């Protein structure tokens, strides 16, 4: 009733039934809003489809105009025109893509399904356009004589390469073969994901109250709610009875991990964890073994057609680590100390089991429960004691202050701008000298129509091609919303996430390049996590923590003793975390270094051979087994799962530079970092950029130290 009186507020999300006249579709208008922030209040669900349709139409017309240009191909009339094309499509795509993740509804979800094949066909029309490639190639052939800047040359090379990697240089027969492989692959990837989802949704542990020994109130409540939801949506009475008054746990991690940590029923832990690790490996209709092997085989065949030894070679060509050997070297170097540490952790846990007077040997399904017991014993860190010091506003001030000290950035919250949701807040980011750098949107609280996890994205990119365009960047997280009068209080893990995503945001906001397609976070996957992960380190610096971590009620600064415990606990369980992760990374590399001549593998035997070779211990299962390794068999991480640790090598080594200098805000280093990493996008080779900042190639020593894998942790 009274809401909306004091301030103009956006209207409730609503579905309107009538199609709007074209003139009123905000996507067809110039946005005169401050900083070009999308006019979210005016954008209705029915505006998307017409905008997508016209966007694709205009885009194809623009491409045709480039191809049919009677003038000789030049950098300007080909590459730059390509860069300028697709404005409307990008405009609608950015808003749509963001909102389907952060503020979706059933209409948008339906639209997503409808649009998918249309957009896919559209992008094929461009990437497989021979006339377009011919013009790009013509420019490429005369690149030496064109007097191009380094950035222009990189744009030319990258654009050409993306055509070549789609098969532009192959003859007709080969091209047909590639198309065939691609469509077969696309079907297999989809099937893999669908099977996995079905297998994950298909298993439930339905428990009676008497089975809940050890479980806390919150975990019980969530399981009871899961059961209630199932009972409500049950189609038969029989199903209803099955769930009513029961407790349901599933192999989704959010349900499984709390159970594995708290449940005193070892038999049930085994049951649930085994169901999790057997997904896709049950020799039923949803089995993924053969699909995984076929995907690997087809990728190897495609790589061979394209002239590469293996799929990994094909992928890594575009990465910071250029060859499978480099990746294996990194993984092998980390493997031994991680495994060694994991073995110590097993011993620690076994000691607890023995002390409890129980008679069993630690198995993989015991890990969560007993590592938690060790943690309590060794580190005695009470997460709940930390939270009052970590209110969202305090932490935001912390990250703002950090970037202010590094680069002189200042932030002004724009209270009167309405975004797509009242929890999404807007700041203007200004440079040291007061010039406008970009807009930052922070959307931090969890809600039911937002996807889980945390990510960064943008509503507007940066480009200097036709005048200066500054970006609009968003961070989306799933932190707990405030309860009652208390502010939103974060866990330290949340704090790290906030700094991480803010690091991506910095990459998107500080960027300063000519061509939009090379701006911000457009670099290779094993590099783009670096600017994000690097920023996390400042959150763990005691002096910085103290500057923002003040108690929300008393104003007291977080005590030294608490900080010390917190930092010590960060090295906890790293043996396990690294071992399970590295095992999966090596498995990924093994699958994608198969050659086209290798026979179709039996996934189980293949995986077993890998595990035997690296000597994994029975107490640890790789983070993903082949049959549920969606990152590589349904997503875009093939020969790329190592990226996370590679970025970690970079961020640990990079932060070490600041530590070595004795000043975590060392102005000279900060300037180098900004100039060579945060501003450059993908306008230069990632390794070159890193070396310009660091003065040398990265080393893994700092990472081993940070993670307590250097033998110093007791």
């Amino acid at each position, binding site marked *: 009733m*009274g*809401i*909306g*009186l*004091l*301030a103009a*507020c956006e209207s*409730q999300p609503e579905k309107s039934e009538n199609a709007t006249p074209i003139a009123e579709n905000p996507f067809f208008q110039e946005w005169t809003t401050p900083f070009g922030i999308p006019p979210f209040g005016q954008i209705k669900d029915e505006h998307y489809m017409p905008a997508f349709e016209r966007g694709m139409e205009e885009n194809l017309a623009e491409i045709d105009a480039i191809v049919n240009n009677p003038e000789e191909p030049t950098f300007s009339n080909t590459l730059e025109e390509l860069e300028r094309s*697709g404005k409307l*499509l*990008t405009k609608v*795509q*950015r808003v749509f*893509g963001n909102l389907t993740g952060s503020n*979706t*509804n*059933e209409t948008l979800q339906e639209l997503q*399904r409808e649009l*998918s*094949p249309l*957009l*896919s066909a*559209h*992008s*094929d029309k*461009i*990437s497989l356009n021979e006339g377009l490639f011919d013009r790009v190639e013509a420019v490429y052939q005369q690149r030496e004589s064109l007097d191009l800047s380094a950035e222009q040359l990189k744009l030319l090379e990258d*654009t050409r390469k*993306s055509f070549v990697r*789609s098969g532009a240089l192959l003859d007709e027969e080969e091209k047909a073969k590639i198309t065939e492989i691609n469509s077969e692959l*696309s079907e297999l990837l*989809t099937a893999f*994901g669908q099977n*996995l989802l079905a297998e994950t*949704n298909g298993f439930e542990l339905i428990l009676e109250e008497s089975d809940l020994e050890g479980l806390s109130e919150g975990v019980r409540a969530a399981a009871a709610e899961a059961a209630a939801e199932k009972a409500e949506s049950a189609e038969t009475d029989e199903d209803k009875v099955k769930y009513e008054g029961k407790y349901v746990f599933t192999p*989704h991690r*959010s349900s499984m991990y709390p159970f594995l940590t708290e449940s005193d029923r070892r038999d049930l832990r085994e049951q649930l964890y085994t169901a999790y690790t057997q997904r896709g490996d049950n020799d039923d209709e949803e089995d993924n073994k053969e699909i995984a092997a076929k995907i690997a085989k087809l990728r190897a065949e495609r790589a061979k057609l394209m002239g590469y030894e293996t799929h990994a070679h094909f992928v890594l060509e575009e990465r910071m680590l250029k060859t499978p050997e480099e990746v294996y070297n990194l993984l092998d170097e980390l493997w031994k100390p991680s495994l060694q540490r994991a073995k110590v952790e097993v011993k620690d846990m076994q000691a607890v089991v023995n002390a409890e007077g129980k008679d069993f040997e630690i198995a993989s399904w015991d890990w969560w429960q007993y590592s938690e017991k060790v943690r309590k014993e060794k580190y005695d860190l009470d997460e709940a004691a930390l939270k009052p010091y970590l209110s969202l506003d305090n932490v935001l001030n912390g990250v703002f202050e950090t970037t202010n000290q590094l680069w002189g950035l200042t932030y002004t*919250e724009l*209270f009167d701008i309405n975004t797509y*949701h*009242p*929890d999404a807040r807007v700041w203007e980011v200004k440079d040291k000298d007061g010039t406008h750098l970009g807009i930052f949107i922070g959307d931090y609280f969890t809600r*039911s129509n937002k996807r*889980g*996890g945390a*990510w*960064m994205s*943008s509503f507007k990119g940066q480009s200097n091609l036709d005048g200066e365009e500054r970006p609009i960047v968003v961070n989306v997280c799933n932190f707990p*919303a405030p309860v009652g*009068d208390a502010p939103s209080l974060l866990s330290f893990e949340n704090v790290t996430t906030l700094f991480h995503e803010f690091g*991506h945001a910095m990459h*998107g906001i500080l960027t300063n390049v000519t061509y939009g*397609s090379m701006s911000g976070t*457009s670099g290779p996957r094993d590099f783009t*996590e670096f600017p994000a992960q690097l920023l996390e380190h400042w959150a763990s610096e005691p002096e910085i923590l103290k500057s923002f971590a003040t108690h929300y009620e008393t104003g007291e600064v977080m005590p030294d003793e608490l900080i010390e415990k917190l930092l010590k606990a960060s090295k906890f369980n790293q043996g396990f975390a690294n071992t399970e992760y590295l095992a999966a990374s090596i498995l990924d590399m093994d699958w994608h270094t198969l050659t086209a001549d290798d026979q179709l593998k039996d996934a189980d035997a293949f995986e077993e051979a890998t595990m035997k070779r690296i000597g994994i211990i029975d107490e640890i299962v790789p983070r993903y087994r082949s049959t549920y390794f*969606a990152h590589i068999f*349904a*997503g*875009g*991480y093939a020969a790329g799962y190592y990226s996370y640790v590679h970025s970690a090598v970079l961020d640990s080594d990079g932060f070490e530079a600041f530590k070595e200098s004795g000043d975590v805000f060392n102005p000279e280093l900060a300037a180098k970092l900004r100039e060579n990493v945060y501003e450059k996008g993908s306008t230069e080779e990632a390794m070159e950029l890193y070396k310009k900042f660091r003065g040398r190639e990265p080393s893994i020593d700092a990472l081993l130290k940070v993670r307590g894998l250097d033998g110093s942790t007791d």
Partner: protein
Amino acid sequence: MKIINKFCLLAFLLLSISALSHPLDEFLILDIEEGQMNLEDEEMTEEYVAALKRQQQRRLAAKTGSERFWLFTKAGVEHIIPKGIDHILFVLGLFFSSLFFRPLLWQVTAFTLAHTITLAMAVLGVLTIPGEIVEPLIALSIVWVAVENCLFKKTTKWRPAIVFGFGLLHGLGFASVLSAYGLPKANFVPALLAFNIGVEIGQLLVLLGAAVLFWLTRKKFWYRKRVQIPASLTIATVGFYWFVERVFL
């Protein structure tokens, strides 16, 4: 699921149109690891309303003290004119009780004092009475004063006491509005004061308007028959309709 996969492909092919640092294919992975989204309208609306309140508090907190004071004063006025039609009727009910300045002043003072007390108590959370009870009673209070106007030619002695009681009710009505604005805890007293001042201004404007309209008729012999009683009856009827509406409809 398929969609997301292809979106990723698209993003890649169109030279990274969407600068997602966590590529969209991770959404598929999240679906598998964390479970799919469960869209429930009721829950979404509840979350949205809570978020709106947070937004208003942030906006309020960002304003200067005097801006905030002015804002709450304005909100107080608006809650009488034009949004508080039931409060307007109540005040008119008081107006039609007496043409003498003193009794009217007594009544208005009693009313103001009373609603200030309950408003403060309710906003501080000392007193909570659900709207389903308060709102019909407010309607009845309108009926009461209007009917009294018809029955008694002169203002009764107990009238200020009764008006005081009704004021307590109306204060609770204001409180539900004020709390919906998201009262800043840190600036509670000035905000409450400003809102009250606004309400007073609103009430005085109503009285002033009525006085201007009926000034010339007040001394006429037919004033009671042609103005006071018909006006009060109309007010009573509307009040009774609201009561029925708030209880039964």
